[in-house]
């Protein structure tokens, strides 16, 4: 069994979105292209039989992270800055390095056995029920940890992003009002 047509189309979409996101001049366009790429990946997951992961990808990446990026673009006024310099001074070196990384990875993939492997490719029969059981039984501790980490990240993000209040809302009001009682 070779690669299906749907896989090829989705992969192309994803890669095109990614390339566009990394090269377009206007940041808002980049964000939109990024969303396309994320959505393409979600569809790839569905195509590979991981519906739940695909939906999660759609929900989190397209629904939240892409929007968050748009907000960040607006809040940092990045869309208003001059569009002359898109790439950083070491841009060429970076591109070369990325290419080298791709070359090495592709070499590894092609050189490994997977290209000609004839292992089982039957679609796994996993229902939402199995996933739910796995999450609530074997993976319940990581789930709780990730919940805790998300809470921490949320609080941290709020603390980082909130504008520091001007003036010193004094801590003195918390000091003991009757120090002479201590004597």
């Amino acid at each position: 069994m070779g690669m299906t047509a749907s896989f090829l189309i989705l992969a192309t979409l994803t890669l095109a979105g990614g390339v566009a996101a990394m090269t377009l001049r206007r940041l808002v366009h980049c964000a939109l292209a990024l969303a396309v790429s994320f959505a393409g990946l979600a569809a790839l997951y569905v195509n590979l039989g991981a519906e739940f992961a695909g939906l999660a990808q759609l929900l989190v990446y397209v629904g939240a992270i892409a929007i968050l990026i748009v907000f960040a673009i607006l809040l940092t006024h990045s869309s208003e800055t001059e569009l002359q310099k898109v790439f950083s001074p070491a841009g060429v070196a970076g591109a070369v390095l990325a290419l080298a990384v791709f070359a090495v990875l592709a070499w590894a993939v092609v050189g490994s056995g997977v290209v000609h492997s004839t292992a089982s490719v039957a679609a796994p029969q996993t229902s939402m029920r199995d996933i739910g059981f796995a999450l609530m039984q074997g993976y319940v501790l990581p789930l709780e940890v990730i919940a805790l980490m998300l809470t921490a990240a949320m609080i941290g993000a709020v603390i980082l992003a909130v504008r520091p209040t001007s003036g010193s809302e004094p801590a003195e009001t918390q000091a003991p009002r009757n120090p002479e009682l201590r004597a």
Partner: protein
Amino acid sequence: MTPWIVQNLWLIPVLPMVAAGLSALLKRKERGLSAGLAIGSMAISLLLSLKAFAEALAHPALQVKIVDWMQFGDQWVQLGWLLDPLAAVMLVMVSFVGLLIFIYSLGYMAHDDNFARFFCFLSLFAGAMLGVVIANSLLLLFMCWEVVGLTSYLLIGFWFHRPAAAAAAKKAFITTRVGDLGLLIGMVWLYSQSGTLIFYGYGNGCLEQRAVTAMAAHATVAGMAVSTAIGLLIFCGAVGKSGQVPLHVWLPDAMEGPTPVSALIHAATMVAAGVYLVARVYPLMSGSALEVVAWVGAITALFAASIAVAQNDIKRILAYSTVSQLGYMMLGLGVGGVAVGMFHLITHAFFKALLFLGAGSVIHGCTEEQDIRNMGGLRKFLPVTFATYSAGMLALCGFPLFAGFWSKDAILHAAHGWDVSMGPFYLGAIGALLTAFYMTRQMYYVFFGQKRTPAATVTPAAVAAHGAGHGVEPAVSPRPGEVCAVEDPHESPSVMTGPLAILAVFAVFLGFVGTPAWPWFQNFLNGRGVAWDWAGFSEPGLVSTMVVSSLIVFAGLLLGWWFYGRKPIVNATDEDALESLAPPVFHALGNRLYVDEFYGVTVIALTRFCAAFASWLDRWIFGGLVRLLAWTVTGVSWLDAGVDRFVVNGGFDEGCREVSRGGRLLSRLQNGRVQTYLSVIAAALVVLALWLLWGHRG
């Protein structure tokens, strides 16, 4: 199958400790909550103690529970608790007296700012004391013992803004430390000899037959058996804690603490811990060790009683009386065995707590006055206190049929029958006479005669000057913030008189659990049943001892009346009746036989001298050596510097320059741009992947 209560005996000490921990977290104004925590936990502990007592009644045999604590090399350090009649009796006594005193403190400390802190310390103390009682390991006992010492320190210095209280706290801590050093050495020695600190562990404990026989057989310096030496070292700890001569000096000073503390810690429980410790390690105490215990106890009993005669502070009299009674307990342990000493411990706990709480009630009623010369005639103003105090006083004197009579008599009888020497018996008998005398004196000063509550003329300063003139401690001045108004003394609230009444009942009747005809208490401790038998009185010498001791008590009371009751004391500045009889003796006693001064010119002066010598040594000998060395080094380094500057530097500086140039080059990598760092990571990824792939290929 271990019963539930033995399994969970640890709850008894832990509950008050938890209460202490919780109330330590409370705010200062949460007075009700902290007191409620302390009293509630203590009440539950009392209930559990009663259950443990019932268990011990049903199964008088020793029951233990041992838990592993931590690994130590290839052995486990074990802790554990035990329940036997001895521990059960102490548990009930400590938690019952403790609960009463907690309740009393509600009234006594009602005006104190640090009410919550007080109850926190008090609960911690109660927990640690209960821990001492149930400990089945000398290590656990020692830990609780030290916590008890710590809380004693904290509570003596509870009003730390008074210099006297702070000094007394330090004195108590340091003096008991001297004894605890002995205990610690004894403990280590015991461990090295028997390999365990568990008291009773199914045949392997250090107090059981096997270990004790081995230690008794093994002789050490001067032919003394090892067990004797260890027993004496442990007795050192008891001497410190129980205020025996010569380490008794801290106990009278400890009266600077609040009165409930004096009652609980320095009369009923903590100071009795020393006696309990000796009773607990009794199997280690061989004959010669017990001789030492008996003599120390007897000397303490007389010594402290004689000092008590000439004190003017109501609490100090009681403190010396406590020291003296503790001496009796030790004497009882030494000559008569565990039951004799413990019986006096239990009765004493009740009547001495009663006396202290009564004294607290008097002090409370007289607006913080503690000098008995400034009291007088309080009978009319504090009727409940007077009645209960009288009961306690008669019990302490050993008036026939009161609690103290039976227990003290058992001790005197045992001392009379001691085959080593009659000395302790005579010392104890004279001590009993003095006890009756000084208590009568105190009663007359405080409750009879004319009211001598000082008018405005007697300010604290005047009292201090007066006290200094007589060579006694100045009366403690009123606490800051308390109005020292001249007003009639008033009876204390019922939250204070209630515990007094309960304790008074015990002071009168508790002795009947251990009369010769019905020695329930003694037999219970020895794990035997009991039947009513008048023949108990027919033991040789018993009745005659009782008659003699009763006569001694009557003589003491009569003497007291002769000196102080015959004509009422009119004026606070009047000379003491005994003082006019024999001024030098009285002054010597008033100055506590100069023991503190003796320590001042010996131990402390020696310490000072050693410190000064060490300082001199440090400054001139070691300091000189160091300075000489320093000069030598300086000289050498001057020489070196010359060589350095002209020979080495040329080459070295060049090297340095090269290194810093290289550093500058390298630091260009650290250009602060995130993307550069990321590039390096990517490059490393490429290199790593290539290396792995080639490695795989190869």
